């Protein structure tokens, strides 16, 4: 809760500073020339929302230190990369590496995409502590969330209906879950949408038949995390990629960045940047 509120406050302060700053456009123009940014005093990020969220987490610090406004469009990895290729954004936020045909198009446009790993997005499936299930496979999770399985006994549990919890559209957690678990399979229409990790955690804690997912950093003893494909979520299994519900989050720039853009994409390596990443449920890449 404190974390959510502090984040809301940060955005609020950011908005206030933003309105002050936009009044002074002339100085900013000189700065843009030396920083190599697409737009005057902005870093424009486009792409996957889970990586875009990290850009938003860093935004306030760069507004304070450099007077730079960070704008994030939540599209997807592919659109972010083409945004970079056609010089419509400064940072492509992606959940995967560049494909060959994207690299070819970039070269034909004279653009040299350089990846920067900013964090690992790991989510954890959670159930009520009284649930007898200890682990699920990705396939079982998909069938639970698509509505093919509607009773815990179908996955070896008790004869109780399964209550499905999900996060709202636009959350990085939901995006990661959708991409890794669901793919093109649509979610059951019976799923209940909650609006942050805390709400999922407390609903799980008071609902014996519920299943949900939260960011790795939000696990506590009020819920029981499940092994996935037999693998537990630990910093080791997340970093070595063996834990299935995890993936690296990247920011791509055109060429090696310098100045404020370099500090921005490398902010996750600083003490402040790592703290912001971890406090919001991500795993630091370093």
């Amino acid at each position, binding site marked *: 809760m404190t974390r959510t509120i502090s984040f809301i*406050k940060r955005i609020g302060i950011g908005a206030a500073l933003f309105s002050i700053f*936009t009044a002074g456009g002339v100085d900013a123009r000189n700065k843009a020339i030396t920083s190599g940014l697409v737009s005057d005093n902005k870093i424009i990020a486009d792409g996957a929302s889970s990586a875009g969220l990290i850009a938003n987490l860093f935004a306030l610090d760069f507004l304070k230190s450099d007077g730079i406004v960070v704008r994030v*469009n*939540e599209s997807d990895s592919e659109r972010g990369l083409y*945004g970079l290729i056609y010089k419509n954004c400064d940072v492509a936020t992606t959940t995967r590496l560049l494909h060959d045909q994207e690299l070819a198009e970039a070269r034909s446009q004279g653009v040299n995409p350089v990846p920067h790993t900013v964090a690992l997005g790991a989510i954890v499936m959670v159930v009520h502590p009284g649930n007898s299930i200890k682990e699920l496979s990705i396939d079982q999770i998909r069938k639970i969330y698509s509505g093919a399985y509607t009773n815990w006994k179908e996955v070896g549990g008790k004869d109780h209906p399964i209550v499905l919890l999900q996060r*709202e559209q636009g959350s990085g957690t939901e995006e990661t879950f959708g991409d890794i678990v669901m793919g093109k399979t649509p979610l059951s*229409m019976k799923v209940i949408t909650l609006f942050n990790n805390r709400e999922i955690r407390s609903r799980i804690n008071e609902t014996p038949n519920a299943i949900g997912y939260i960011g790795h950093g939000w696990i506590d003893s009020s819920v029981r995390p499940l092994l996935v494909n037999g693998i537990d979520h630990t910093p080791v299994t997340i970093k070595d990629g063996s834990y299935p519900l995890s993936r690296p989050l990247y920011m791509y720039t055109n060429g090696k960045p310098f100045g404020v853009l370099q500090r921005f994409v490398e902010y996750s390596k600083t003490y402040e940047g790592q703290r912001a990443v971890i406090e919001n449920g991500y795993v630091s890449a370093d």
Partner: protein
Amino acid sequence: MKRTISIVKKVFKSAAFFSLLSTGTVAAHGADAVLTARTLQTGLIADNKIIVDGSPSTGLIANIFALEFLKTDGIVVKVNESDSERGIYSLIYKNCDIASTTRPIHAHELAEAKREGVKPVQHIVAHDAIIMVVHPANSLSGLTLDQIRNIYAGTYTNWSQLGGPNRPIVLLQRENASGTQETFRDIVMGKSPISMRAITLFNNREIIGRIASTPNAIGMIGRGWIDNSVKTLPVNGVDHSPKTIKDESYPLHRLLYMYTNGHPTGVLKRFVDYSLTPEGQRSLSENGFIAENR
């Protein structure tokens, strides 16, 4: 700009209110009985919240009204931006208080609602209209929906393909989460993907500014944002006006609906009817929507 900032401030204020409210959770727990009593009266799914699920365009209106209801009733409005269908099923399975949609309910959805003992009741909250805009010096006098789709799909890349001068078309679009972008995609693009070359800007003001400074650009804005720095294009030969929007002859138009389970009472009724009050209608027109007079 002023409007954007005022919205930002509104959101900020509501965030501050929200944090005040939620730091008072312990006190609120003591007053559980009061809350429960209120919930029973209002018929809301969660204690002191109105949960909205469905189309982002209509969800935006719920967000615009949110601060007022936080102030008057201590009610927090939570909006999930999914789509009309998911919003309706969420209402049917009693997972939200309001389904926010851009279309009336379908017959098979109504049948499922009946099976679940839910009675969806429709409330029209506003008209939404988007306007295609170009630089004032652009010689074009209108476009068809089909031409606009082909422009944004990247099939037409030069104004000469539409009877204009031999200049490349610069495509502007709004960010994915905006209602304007959703309306544009639904009415104009359908399943055609937008060209990867489209430039994403983040509000109506930015689109207007970029159009005014880019002779070859085309973009779309909410109707409330038009000024003389841009030229508006009739679509399929119909110009936008309150009349053509309300009689639905203007093509880039749609109605925005909120659905409740049964006729709402108490705060939920005031919420879905807020668009009929002078305050609600002012908020709507300030944000580019057109109020519906029921």
